[in-house]
């Protein structure tokens, strides 16, 4: 039964490719990412030359917390859980990422240790883009490298704003709890 499904889906993929003459290339996937949205097809082709596709099995780590970051990953298919070990050695789930999402993007800026691990919760294919290649791109194609860096700065800024809002919310919560606690005493 399982085999017949596999063969059917394989045929479906193959016939689709044959009829439309299209296969989802790395360029197609890169086009969907907000970080690279301003880039033309020609510019994306340049990036696709140093995009490495990797496959991970279920429960396999793409990277672990504490390791030096070297690459950003884009999920081509599958699912990735961002996890962090708690004090009692259990993995806490921070986020679940789907096809088209990116993770580990701060590694494009420096090699500081990963703050959390990335675990494949389904068989996953991801595309890796390395900081070293991006640095090289800044020299050979400054206009492409500049656009990516600009978007990376925007995304990082947005995340900082979100984190700041979270911190403010949490401080408010703590203050309210403190007031409640003092009132009860």
């Amino acid at each position, binding site marked *: 039964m399982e085999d017949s499904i596999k063969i059917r889906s394989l045929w479906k993929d193959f016939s689709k490719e044959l009829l439309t003459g299209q296969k989802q290339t790395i360029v197609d996937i890169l086009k969907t990412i907000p970080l690279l949205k301003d880039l033309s097809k020609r510019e994306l082709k340049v990036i696709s*030359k*140093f995009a*490495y596709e*990797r496959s*991970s099995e279920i429960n*396999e*780590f*793409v*990277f*672990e917390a*504490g*390791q*030096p*970051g*070297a*690459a950003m990953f884009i999920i081509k298919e599958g699912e990735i859980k961002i996890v962090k070990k708690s004090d009692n050695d259990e993995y806490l789930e921070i986020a679940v990422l789907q096809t088209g999402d990116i993770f580990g993007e701060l590694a494009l800026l420096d*090699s500081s240790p990963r703050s959390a691990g990335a675990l494949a919760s389904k068989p996953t294919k991801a595309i*890796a883009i*390395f900081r*070293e290649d991006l640095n090289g791109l800044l*020299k*050979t194609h400054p206009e492409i490298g500049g656009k990516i860096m600009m978007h990376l700065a925007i995304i990082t800024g947005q995340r900082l704003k979100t984190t700041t809002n979270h911190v403010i919310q949490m401080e408010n919560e703590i203050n309210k709890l403190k007031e409640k606690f003092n009132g009860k005493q």
Partner: protein
Amino acid sequence: MVSNDRLNRSRVFYFSLFFFFISIFGFLIFVLKDLVLPIILGILAAYISLPGVNYLKRKGIPKSLAIVILLGVFSLVVFVIGQKIVSAIPNEKENLELRVQLQYKLDQNFLALLGKTDYNSEGNFLDDLVGDELYQIFQGLNSFLVFNKHESSEFKKYIKKSMISERTLFFYNENLKHPFLSTPNSKSNKLNENTANKSKTKSASKIALFLDAISIWIILPFIFIFVLIDEGEIKSFFLGIVPNRYFEMAFTTFSNVDVAIGNYLRGTLLQSSLVGLVIFIGLSIIGFKIQAALLIGIIAGISNAIPFLGPVIGLGTGLIYAMIVEGINPIIPFIPANPIVGVLIVVFIAQFLDNAVFQPIVLGKAVNLHPLVVVIGVTGGSIIAGFWGMLLAIPTIVIFKVVISTVYRQAKAYYIIY
């Protein structure tokens, strides 16, 4: 349990695969050892030219055209240097004349060094101090220059045909007067006979040798082109077979090693070129012919890549030429007319500039090797592969050092080893 079995099976599989490929690779290297040098030099040339290709690409020149331009420049340089070297290499008659001349000059300079007028007269303090030891070295050098029977008869034939200039004939007769050299020892004679036989076979099959060399070296430009054309496919292939756990580490190691080795090789090339250039300019100033100065500059530049021994090779070549050269006219008047002193000054200046300026600026302290490693490496290289072994020993050791230290650092950073 199942996963453990699977793990063991995959370990056995990968180990067998690795062993299989290493055996095949080792066998191929052994069988095709003649191709190893052109392949290594092709890769090195491509590596060194990579920034050149990138520079031309940034200037808007397509990559393929940039590669063609660089290949053209390389071919032109090799052709010009090759032509200079070929035109400077003497034929059999010139070789004999040169040896007669060199032997005479060596004799004269040796006597002058010890402050003697002939071998029976009293010498200076140097003669008293180390005269006997120096004489041994001098005899050793002379044993390479003395004619064997075959060469003697050849030279006499040239004399009969009046093909030898009067000056060389004078040198020849003076050499014959020398009491110690008229009866060369059997060892040196044998050595000379061997070299004579070698040169005989060489001259007999020059075309075959040329074709042989062409068929092997034709691979070099192809290696050069394909390594430069590569758009990261080679790196992609190797990274593709790395397990996920080591993927990021492998990439980082790859690029760190790439940068370090690229900088080292390009730095060494630049340093050698600068030393060669200084020696070329210096020798031209002291009045050497441009062609001779260029040839000595090239030899000194290339051999400068061999630590310790390189400068000696450059100096030796310069001194040998200085001994046989006659009637040199220094460009600047206050320069000493003695070419030997001139060569010593030029090589000293070149080495001073190399150690004080070129090395610190070009190479920095990126790859420091212990002098003991350098000495053993160069000696080992010469045993394994002669001159090329000496030349490539240090870059090979540097590559290994960079690879091992980077892999170790990265493996620790990624918690693969503790």
